[in-house]
């Protein structure tokens, strides 16, 4: 490679590769905060001669993982103990004799990625095997079979009630209730207030347009006058029906009483 001219390009490529690796492999807790290296001088890189840069970089990343010096690692190992175990088990199984993954009960051999890596070199079978394992662990079938781990409970740990209950062996993160066999409900019963008279089984679709308000009709002067005349006539009839005296009307003739 042409060093003086291509140095710029080289760096660019390497940055790209690094970024990709970060995205894939580096766990969140190992990521440097963004911008922490901006003021330092950039280090120039060259691609590895093996041609398989990915492998090296993943190895580098996994090395500190096993040491577990980070607080975040410690925390993760507490919260997700099972996860770690399964990976360890899987590594054990990855010995030459065993070919079936313990978690998902699928053979490790038939991975397309491992087949690809074995093509490159026959001497690096061990590394290609671990690599195959990694690919396998990433596979959908394996992931589905992993025991699901839950995030810790959102309860405030400083609560007096919690400390009392945990004193008697209740674990807020275990997703268990109270009771002799911790069989009780884990969350309080919820109820939704009901403001309408809708019967059982009636479901109003949520995105219903709001009911249209009736527009008030504006009356012009003529309509008002007409309405008033109508009302007056009605009142007159009622008045006559209630208070009218038939004998008197007969005597005086229609209209006289008015």
């Amino acid at each position, binding site marked *: 490679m042409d060093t003086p001219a291509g140095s710029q390009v080289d760096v660019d490529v390497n940055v790209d590769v690094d970024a990709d690796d970060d995205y894939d492999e580096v766990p969140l807790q190992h990521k440097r905060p963004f911008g922490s290296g901006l003021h330092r001088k950039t280090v120039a890189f060259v691609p590895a001669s093996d041609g398989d840069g990915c492998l090296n970089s993943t190895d580098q990343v996994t090395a500190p993982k096993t040491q577990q010096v980070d607080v975040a690692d410690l925390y993760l190992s507490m919260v997700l103990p099972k996860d770690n175990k399964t990976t360890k088990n899987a590594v054990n199984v990855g010995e030459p004799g065993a070919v079936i993954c313990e978690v998902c009960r699928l053979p490790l051999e038939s991975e397309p990625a491992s087949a690809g890596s074995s093509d490159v070199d026959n001497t690096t079978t061990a590394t290609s095997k671990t690599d195959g394992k990694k690919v396998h662990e990433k596979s959908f079938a394996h992931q589905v079979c992993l025991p699901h781990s839950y995030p810790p409970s959102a*309860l405030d740990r400083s*609560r*007096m*009630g*919690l*400390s*009392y*209950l945990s*004193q*008697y*062996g*209740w674990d*807020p993160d275990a997703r268990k*209730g*109270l*009771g*002799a066999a*911790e*069989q*009780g*409900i*884990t*969350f*309080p*019963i*919820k*109820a*939704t*207030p*009901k*403001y309408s*008279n*809708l*019967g*059982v*089984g*009636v479901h109003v679709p949520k995105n219903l347009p709001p009911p249209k308000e009736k527009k008030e009709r504006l009356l012009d002067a003529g309509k008002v006058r007409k309405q008033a005349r109508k009302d007056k006539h009605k009142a007159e009839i009622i008045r006559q029906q209630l208070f009218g005296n038939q004998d008197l009307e007969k005597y005086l003739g229609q209209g006289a009483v008015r």
Partner: protein
Amino acid sequence: MTDYNSESSDPSKGVKRTNMGEDGTKDSKRIKTANGDEQYNPYLAHTYEDSSSQQNGFKSPLDQLERHNTTALQMTKAEDGERNPWTGEPHSQQYFKILQSRRDLPVHKQRQEFLDTYHSTQILVFVGETGSGKTTQIPQYVLFDELPFQTGKLIACTQPRRVAAMSVAQRVANELDVKLGEEVGYSIRFENKTGPKTMLKYMTDGQLLREAMHDHDMTRYSCIILDEAHERTLATDILMALLKQIAARRKDLKIIVMSATLDAQKFQSYFYNAPLLAVPGRTHPVEIFYTPEPERDYVEASVRTVLQIHATEPEGDILLFLTGEEEIEDACRRISLEVDDMIRESDAGPMRVYPLYGTLPPAQQQRIFDKAPEPLRKGGRPGRKCIVSTNIAETSLTIDGIVYVVDPGFSKQKIYNPRSRVESLLVSPISKASAQQRAGRAGRTRPGKCFRLYTEKAFKKELIEQTYPEILRSNLANTVLELKKLGVEDLVHFDLMDPPAPETMMRALEELNYLACLDDDGELTKLGSLASEFPLDPAVAVMLISSPEFYCSNEMLSITSLLSVPSIWIRPNNARKRADEMKAQFAHPDGDHLTLLNAYHAFKGAEQQGTDMKQWCHEHFLSFRHLSSADNVRAQLKRIMETHDIELISTPFQDKNYYINIRRALLAGFFMQVAMRESSNSKVYKTVKDDQLVMIHPSTVVTSPYDWVVYNEFVLTTKQYVRTVTNIRPEWLLEIAPVYYDVDTFEKGEIKSALSRVTEKVRRRQAIKGSGR
């Protein structure tokens, strides 16, 4: 019966008393000398005793019986005797009449079977549908088998409701031909009607729990019967868990769990697969109808259904289930109006409509047992009655003659949310079990029909299987305090049938911690132990206990009693304005608590002047019934305070601090129920720490918009209200409950800034005072 009361009964009663109280040795000595009996055998003490009662010419057949080895035949013989086997008095005429009807009950046929099972086991699950007679008969069967005078131990039978305990005790006293309060008694909150001779005690489940606080092993009882266990009240659930523990310690204690529904397997497996005995009820088939489509308006639909039944179905009374007082009254009005129209237009028969709900005065509740009206004219269509009820008619009250049931599928249910600390009554769909129970009400006298105002699909898919037991829906502060007092420390593994959510439990512990009833480690404090002596909510009890510090314990005692009875204010629909005017006479501008107190003082004042109190209450739109029961509660609470040496003092009325002291004393218990106004010229308040937006309930007398109020209860209807409020000052909060009102623990917001302003003000004022000195 009255004829025999004078002379013959007294000696025999005396004998029984000694018999119950002491363990026989002293008596037997006396008998020995009297009869010159040489072969004294302490195990036959009761038979010796018997020989002494022969002086009255009566030999009780019970004395021959061997405890836990009796037969139904022996018992019926004892019951058939001329004289009462328990008192030695001749039976009254009425007794045999009742006895005959008792023998007709379904339970009677299985008396021997019951006894056999009872002898063979410590815990027994008994299933009998309503009407089988289990509540009245089983305790008597046990009584004849336990023979309490031999052991001096009682039989307890718990009921979820006060009224049931009272009325059943009365009924059983009649059946046994004894006086209520002597051999058979009852014990409910604020009322105890038992005597030294009591052998069988009906009581509310809560009352038995309270007794257990002082007698952890329930040593007074030889048999405990938990009735209506299917209702799964809070106290029954706790009792079951407790009895499960006690049964392991006390092998001589027998337990019977009685349930009316068929899900008894759950009880059975809970009590280590105890034997189950089932008695068929006296029920007829009920035809069930569903609507083809869901109903848009269930109230409207239920009114129409009732009218439809009236128009088309043959004779028989109707029971309609609705949710609340207002809805029921409204439906009653609508039905009566429509029926009047029907009579006019289509010659329908007359129909009388009765509402039924918990807060209805007893006299009006009694009206539901009236006979259906006669036809309007001879040969006309038959009349019927229609009862519109809350779910109290579902299990607790049995009304004969119901043939048609209309079930819209809703009921009001209490729900407690531990996050917002709000206990609310919400209209929610009922459970399948509850729907079946409702339908069963139609088949009490003859085959009936049940009309469900929902589709069959909705019944299958929308309704839950069982109603949630109360323990999952309640604030547990009181329960936790009781459990701590009962010596239950491990609240996590306490063997409840349905353990509550951990959060609810945590909230209860924290509430008690703030009230200083529990210390930071969750240990019961002296205050907590004292508070548990009061049959009140912990907050109220703490308020009462700390009231002497504010020089107003007499007044707080009155307020507490007034708050623990239903509302004393009456506001009839046709005289709302007059009622409000009358209430305004008692109003205190600073709040409803003080207004209550004023009304009570006026009541007591008028009483002392010898006024006709019923009339006085009627004129002032006050409930005489509730005021007198508040008076009774006050006397009870006063006795408890006196036994625990809590001073009863008052600030002189002329003192300007009279009302201020009371307002401050309220905060000693209710500091967790405080709301602050959102902003000036707003009517909306925000509750402290729970951040609920509320309005003051329109029933309040408070007119000026105070910034800070303490409230007695949170009401959730269409809006969120706080009811019974009194104005307070924020400085008092910091002073009286400094831990709860530690500003640092508050989340950012208006309340926090308001409180820190107050803190600053107080600090500055103190500084000025300090420099002035």
